[in-house]
């Protein structure tokens, strides 16, 4: 579903992603872990066609980026730590707007389904600026799955959410994953990702340093794996 090879991204003289290779099969839920500044957000922005790679090949659902960006965007849903919603529109109006942008036929029914999915039916006519951060993030998830995308990219979706909001968010993500959709999520919350994902990739120093596949990964095991990868990366950088 996602094939990335020899990906390089430079911002002026600074190289953020170095020769990165990454493959995800359909239906996989991949957690992309890494310290701050590792290049996770940049990588997701390239996958979501918001940024252009300097070198390398990126293919999503059979379409190449950046040449077939519009076709890729039709297959993608994106959630970031920013809600990408308009505060002066109601929850329903926000979803209607994005449904029109995605050309969804009969979108009124679909919007109702989505509001049901994210538990915001009772607030459908309220302005988004009156919503809590958790409610906004739930609506943002709703916006991202409105067109039933094959791939969902999530950039630290749990940031700033309380426990209940995180639980609701996880529940929605698991429902999406259960429908055979492909998910790639960046996060610093090991406990959450160990419950959700089935594969864990560590991105540091601009490339994927290690990957582990485990359907029921314990948090301790994940933490040990993650710290070990980071320690190796530091040791490689500064040889004794």
């Amino acid at each position, binding site marked *: 579903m996602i094939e990335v090879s020899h990906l390089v991204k430079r911002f002026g003289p600074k190289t953020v992603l170095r020769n990165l290779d990454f493959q995800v099969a359909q239906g996989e839920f991949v957690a992309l872990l890494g310290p701050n500044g590792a290049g996770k957000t940049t990588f997701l922005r390239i996958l979501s*066609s918001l940024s252009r790679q300097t070198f390398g090949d990126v293919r999503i659902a059979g379409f190449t980026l950046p040449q077939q960006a519009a076709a890729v965007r*039709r297959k993608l849903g994106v959630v970031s730590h920013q809600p990408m919603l308009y505060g002066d529109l109601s929850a329903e109006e926000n979803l209607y707007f994005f449904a029109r942008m995605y050309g969804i036929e009969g979108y009124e029914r679909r919007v109702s389904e989505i509001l049901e999915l994210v538990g915001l039916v009772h607030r459908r006519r309220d302005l988004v600026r009156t919503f809590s951060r958790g409610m906004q993030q739930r609506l943002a998830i709703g*916006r991202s799955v409105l067109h039933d995308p094959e791939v969902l990219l999530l950039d630290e979706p749990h940031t700033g959410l309380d426990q209940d909001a995180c639980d609701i968010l996880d529940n929605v993500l698991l429902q999406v994953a259960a429908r055979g959709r492909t998910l790639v999520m960046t996060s610093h919350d090991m406990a959450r990702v160990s419950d959700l994902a089935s594969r864990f990739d560590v991105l540091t120093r601009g490339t994927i340093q290690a990957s582990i596949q485990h359907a029921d990964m314990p948090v301790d095991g994940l933490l040990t794996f993650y710290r070990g990868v980071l320690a190796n990366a530091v040791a490689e950088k500064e040889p004794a």
Partner: protein
Amino acid sequence: MKEDTTTPVLAAERKEKISAERRGFKETATPFLRAILAVAWKDLASEWRSREVVSAMLVFALLVIFIFNFALELDPKTRSSLSSGILWATFTFAGTLGLNRSMAVEKDGGCLDGLLLAPVDRTAIYFGKLLSNLAFMLTVAAIVLPIYSILYNVNLFNPGLMLVILLGCWGYVAVGTLLSSMAVQARTRDVLLPILLFPVAIPVLVAAVKASGGYLSAAPWIEIAPWVNVLLVYDVIFTAVAFMVFDYVVEE
């Protein structure tokens, strides 16, 4: 009185016909046109709720014309010759304020990314923003003109002048929307937009001032026509340029 049993049936048929016509429009409207209308609708609906952009533009425009009115103690002859310049200075300053705010709303909360992720030609976003920005500028013009007319004692209600205002505003907003989408990426966006916009907008402003002045002084068409032509050419060129480059301007 005999009950008309056909009425509900006819009403239902009529309703179905109207709904089919609407559906027909929706189905035939291209994704491009649909996206343009969606973006414009979103901006107008947001503005209707917040009244953030138009109220700021309006207050600013009124302040400018009041300041000019009281600062320049002009005789009637000089006043009529300066009217078009003051009018366009007012529209320009207020317009810049609106353009800045309109794009800043998209940047806040990552909304611009949300728009760019839609699977439509990105120039649809430009044209949607252009339509809403034009609507804001023309709304301000519609309110400012009568007040200006009273304060400066000039009759501004001339169809030719209205056409010049429409063409001038279109040109200004066409280039302003493009440059504001460029400036919004920068930290210094509030300062950057006027610096980028005013030099590029000089031709449209000069032509608009000259054409408006011509109409206000009841000059013959032959004197006004070249300036109206400049406005038309500017509008076409900058709308076409924006159509070609918008995709690159908004890309990271």
